[in-house]
């Protein structure tokens, strides 16, 4: 039988309200997860910071190549980096995510640089030059300041000796993400091509599970499947034969984020940077504004921290209001349908058949609701992929459905059989 327009509108309203309810829950749980991860790490400790992105402006490949050929020019970068890391106005976090070409790699495809991306990548292949099995694997390179800023800690092994690493090191101690624990042990070596040079990585330790950093607009870039390579503490040039590796390394290292205590004006940072440039004779840089997502996130995080009680109260009120209107709508719909069911029962439809019919209506409603929730998640929150939140949301939806189906069953039996 068809619903009346009246009850069609109510049905749509019910579906929309339920979907809203679930989406709200999903979002809240996702953000709560993000916040608690953030709070666990140094990044969001009491320290309040503003963040900027620093990058070089040598976009023309020829210009870039020429620059790298000149010892003089390269010296300016080395000194620029030196000035950056010794600034008193800000902290310079040097971070890059260039994949490594690992030979005879023991891990599977989940560590592949292309894993989870749409491009697919080439997987494991035989390297032309070395003749060895090779795979492009995920890697993060960062300096000591970044390592400390994000409060990265190890679950086993030891933090590399930062001062033992130089641009010329061909054996580098590295830290592996948590997922590597079953694959390598402390002391193992991995042969890789790192910035165009064959390098031996020696496993020094393993990161805590769920360690994350801010990288290129993504607040929680997890390091569980990453090889973390420590950058040298200072830059020094060897002879021109090493320029290919060192050129890339130097330029990679001056890219990163500048963090300054909150309240430091952008002018102060720019003037400090220009002093740095003058001292080092390197001027090909630009400062980009804080990624807006981060500002919003920081704002929200502060808001959440400062008003936690109020927010929880608000959440409870919203939940109760939504829950109450949902149960009201659901009751109104059932009352309407009950009238029809009573007539059908009087005409000879069995209670069993009517309960089945009603359950089918509910299946339709909740399937529509799940559809709306999934669409909303894809369209509105594509960046959030929180399995916990998704699980909780689906459990909630199923629970609401099951509770409603059973209570409706009871109500139909009582209401219809009771004489008028």
């Amino acid at each position: 039988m068809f619903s009346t327009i009246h009850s069609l509108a109510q049905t749509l309203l019910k579906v929309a309200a339920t979907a809203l309810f679930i989406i709200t829950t999903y979002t809240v749980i996702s953000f709560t997860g993000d916040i608690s991860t953030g709070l666990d790490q140094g990044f969001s400790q009491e320290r309040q910071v503003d963040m900027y992105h620093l990058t070089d402006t040598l976009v023309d490949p020829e210009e870039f190549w020429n620059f790298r050929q000149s010892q003089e020019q390269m010296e300016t970068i080395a000194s620029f980096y030196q000035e950056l890391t010794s600034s008193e106005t800000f902290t310079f976090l040097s971070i890059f995510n260039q994949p490594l070409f690992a030979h005879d790699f023991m891990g599977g495809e989940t560590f592949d640089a292309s894993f989870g991306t749409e491009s697919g990548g080439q997987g494991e292949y035989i390297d032309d030059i070395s003749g060895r099995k090779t795979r492009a694997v995920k890697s993060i390179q960062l300096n000591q300041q970044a390592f400390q800023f994000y409060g990265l800690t190890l679950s086993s092994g030891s933090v590399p000796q930062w001062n033992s690493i130089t641009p010329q090191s061909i054996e580098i101690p590295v830290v592996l993400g948590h997922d590597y624990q079953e694959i390598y042990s402390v002391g193992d070596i991995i042969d890789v091509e790192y910035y165009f040079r064959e390098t031996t990585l020696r496993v020094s330790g393993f990161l805590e599970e769920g360690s994350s950093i801010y990288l290129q607009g993504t607040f929680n870039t997890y390091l569980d499947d990453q090889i973390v390579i420590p950058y040298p503490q200072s830059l020094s040039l060897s002879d021109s034969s090493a320029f290919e590796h060192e050129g890339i390394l130097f330029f990679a290292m001056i890219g990163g984020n500048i963090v300054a205590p909150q309240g430091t004006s952008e002018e102060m940072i720019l003037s400090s940077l220009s002093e740095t440039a003058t001292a080092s004779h390197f001027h090909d840089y630009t400062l980009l504004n804080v990624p807006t997502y981060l500002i919003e996130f920081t704002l929200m995080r502060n808001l959440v921290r400062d008003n936690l009680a109020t927010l929880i109260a608000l959440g409870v009120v919203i939940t109760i209001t939504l829950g109450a209107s949902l149960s009201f709508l659901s009751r109104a719909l059932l009352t309407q349908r009950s009238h029809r069911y009573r007539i059908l029962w009087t005409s000879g439809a069995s209670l069993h058949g009517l309960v089945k019919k009603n359950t089918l209506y509910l299946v339709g409603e909740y399937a529509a609701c799940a559809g709306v929730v999934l669409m909303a998640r894809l369209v509105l929150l594509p960046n959030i992929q929180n399995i916990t939140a998704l699980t909780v949301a689906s459990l909630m939806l199923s629970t609401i459905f099951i509770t409603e189906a059973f209570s409706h069953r009871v109500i139909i039996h009582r209401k219809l059989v009771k004489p008028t």
Partner: protein
Amino acid sequence: MLQLTHLHKSFHESNGSTRQVFDDADFRLLPHEKSLAVVGRSGAGKSTLLRILSGLDQQFEGLYSFKGAPLAQNESEMAAFRRDHVGIVTQRYELLPHRSLLNNVMLGAVSPRTTREDAEHYLDLVGLSDSKRKKVRELSGGEAQRVAIARALVKNPDFVFADEPTGALDEATEDAVLGIFQRLQGEGVRFVIATHSNKVKSVCERVVRVHNYKLVDDPIGKQHHHNQ
């Protein structure tokens, strides 16, 4: 024939006491009887009897049989009995006010054998074929009652159990409804009607009275009938 013997029925009231309605009562609708009126003072148990006969109330003691075969006192068998044999007209009409007459009549057709043409036929029979697309809320009480009658008839039942079908109607409308009933009796439909109306009593072949928890043939009704 329809037979219900040794009927015991009581209600447990909310204050904890028990309200006896029937005590070893017997009900029969004989094969040749086309109409039977059930009378009795208010609260005697007329509606209760009709609810039991149609299986809407299964909380009773007694032996209920149809054409000599016992009817099981369970939900699904009684629902099937209603679906296949019984049309019900209730004291309140129980129509969906926002739906059309046609839609409402179709609700009486639980089995898929019934078609829209059947619904139109019975709306025609109760004299409402011109307003079949109207909404029920636009109808008068008498018209609504006729829709409820059409709904009870649409499955082409053997019996119609009607609970005070003319209770809210004026005399002219009551005459019209009784005219419809008599016409249907000619087509083989048999009526059990709970009523307070002398006019309804007068057109029924037999009258039984709910009295002292029993069902007794009403001599006044008989007399009236024989006088006709």
